[in-house]
């Protein structure tokens, strides 16, 4: 039975890989700047626990040098492992409140419907009604 959370070494490795996938740019922070390898990683793995073992196995398999080339090879040669890595990094990145604020995303928040007494598309719908030949008669 393995550890219940990534080791510091595994977190460090993830951080290095994460910044290759999601670097700083266009006014957005890099993955490690928002803490992708810390609490956000733990939250992601808690929501998707089936990623835990394959991700940690992958992190233990990463060479010390040549990470750029390693990630590119991973995408082509081990797509399932790359999917675990990239999905975890992206999910953790977008759990960051700072990132959400920067992209204008409040999360899947409640936002009550406003049902108008008369929809504003009735003019378009009237044209559908006028041009449609009607359904095929076969009752």
């Amino acid at each position, binding site marked *: 039975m393995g550890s219940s959370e990534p080791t510091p070494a595994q977190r460090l490795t993830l951080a290095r890989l994460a910044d*290759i*996938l*999601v*670097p700083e*740019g*266009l*006014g*957005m922070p890099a993955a490690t700047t928002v803490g992708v390898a810390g609490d956000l990683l733990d*939250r*992601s793995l*808690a*929501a*998707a*626990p*089936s*990623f835990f073992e394959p991700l940690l196995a992958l992190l233990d398999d990463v060479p010390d040098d040549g990470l750029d080339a390693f*990630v*590119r090879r991973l*995408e082509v040669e081990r797509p399932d492992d790359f999917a675990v890595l*990239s*999905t975890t990094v*992206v*999910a953790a990145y*977008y*759990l960051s409140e700072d990132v959400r604020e920067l*992209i*204008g*995303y409040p*999360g*899947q*928040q*409640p*936002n*009550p*419907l*406003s*049902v*108008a007494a008369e*929809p504003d*598309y009735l003019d*378009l*719908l009237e*044209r*559908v*009604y006028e*041009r*449609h*030949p*009607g*359904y*095929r*008669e*076969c*009752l």
Partner: protein
Amino acid sequence: MAIFSKVYYFNMVTQGHQSEVVIIGAGASGSVAAARLAAAGFEVVCLEQGDWVGPADYMGAQPEAELAWIERWNPDPNARRGMADYPLTGDADVRPVMYNGVGGGLVQWAAMWQPLLASDFRVRTLDGVADDWPISWGDLADAYARVAGDMSVSGLGGDPALPEMNPYPNPPIPIGKIGRVAAEGMDRLGWHWWPGANAIASRRHRSLQACQRRGTCMTGCPENAKATPSLTHWPSAQSAGARLVTGARVMEIPVDKRGRVGGAVYRDRDGVEHFQPAQVVMLAANAVGTARLLLLSASSRFPDGLANSSGLVGRRLMQHPYRTVTVVCEDPLDSWQGPWGQNIYSLEFAETHPDRDFIRGAKWMVMPHGGPMFAVAEYQEAHRHEGFEAVWGANFHRAAAEVFGHSFTWGIQAEDLPEYDNRVLLDPSVHDSSGLPAARIEYRVSENTRRMLDFNVARAVEAAGESGAVTTMVRDVWPTGIGHVLGTTRMGNDPESSVVDRWCRSHDVPNLYVIDGGVFVTGGSANPTATIMANALRVVDHMIETRVSQEVP
């Protein structure tokens, strides 16, 4: 009690109290049947292999909502691997998805409410392919209206592509920015569109709360605004006396020496076998589960599977092969906002046209795309072939900004005609957690369907252009299905070419009914739930009316 062909049923650890009807499956059709039969005074027991689920289980209100799709709420049972799920094996172009629990597929559905076309019931007569149904649209008209009320449907009547219907009980959900942009494109082309009808309450109605637009409909609605039978049917069914047994995986439906079924054998969560005796058995386990169970119930009297003298049990599987065109626009569309039903739909290309190189057609529907994780995933899927740099590294934030909040999806679901070799079998080597054979799926997307999808995708790209798209992202046929499984126990008037009659009663076994989507003769292109529920109500109404003549063990 009748004498059953397998003696060991008398040695069950427990034997339930005799019921008039046992229903297998608490999903769309089983829930309708249980509520209607219980209200009419029948003693009803429903056996459901899954559990109750509700807002406490749903993750839509948590920041990690998108991750919920990866496992706990993954629609693919092979990925989800819940205790109630059984494996789906086999070589299939499209593998079914489903949810096993109270509500069945309606726990995770997108709640799109779409009656069939009138022509769907007369495909052989009109287009010379497949078969006509033994019933017509008119035979379902009353039931369509009643189940729309029970399901608190929100929508706008008057679509000229459909026969006249009673108004829906709730006004339509606003089509939103994405619906508006899509509708304007269709308007420029002169093509059909209509505001989507959804079993999502646009205002508080019966057991449902008003939609809060979280957009997490397909991992269960945490607001209780999406219709699912645990809210819409089971409270009244249980109040009227229906008994629902969860964690009950049915293994076999035994027959007596006269060829009548006498109930159902099931295994509980602890692996203990039980026998639930009943005068009538109704199968409502979806077109995969029901076919599997009939095949599991082979006996000396029915060596090829129960109710299978036609040889059609498990065959003619239809699944609505599905492709998507994601439309990316320059203006912000706030397209993470829900509900994740259909904002608008189109039936422009749903009928056969003599100038096209395929028969029948497809339905389109506009949907949001979810949060940033989904947006990036869609971009990655579309650009994967361009290599690492197209999506990751220096291009990541540009790609994410391009699609997130700026895109919507045209979902295109094709009418796949019934093919004899598309089918459900028992897997000889893989078993579920109860030791029962897995369902093996053999399914090929036909040439007619591929041509249909190619044509419709091309038209959807055209529509996207008229909507001002800066780019589109096109996906090929989805390898996992969209939860529409139909046709494996088709209804018909001829016992040699159908499994059940027009009242969905087995031609072979007079006290055995099938009421799920397996009875569809053809699949149409409409989302099937409205028809599955309406047909179940029609069948049960008839069963109640004719109860005195029902043959029993």
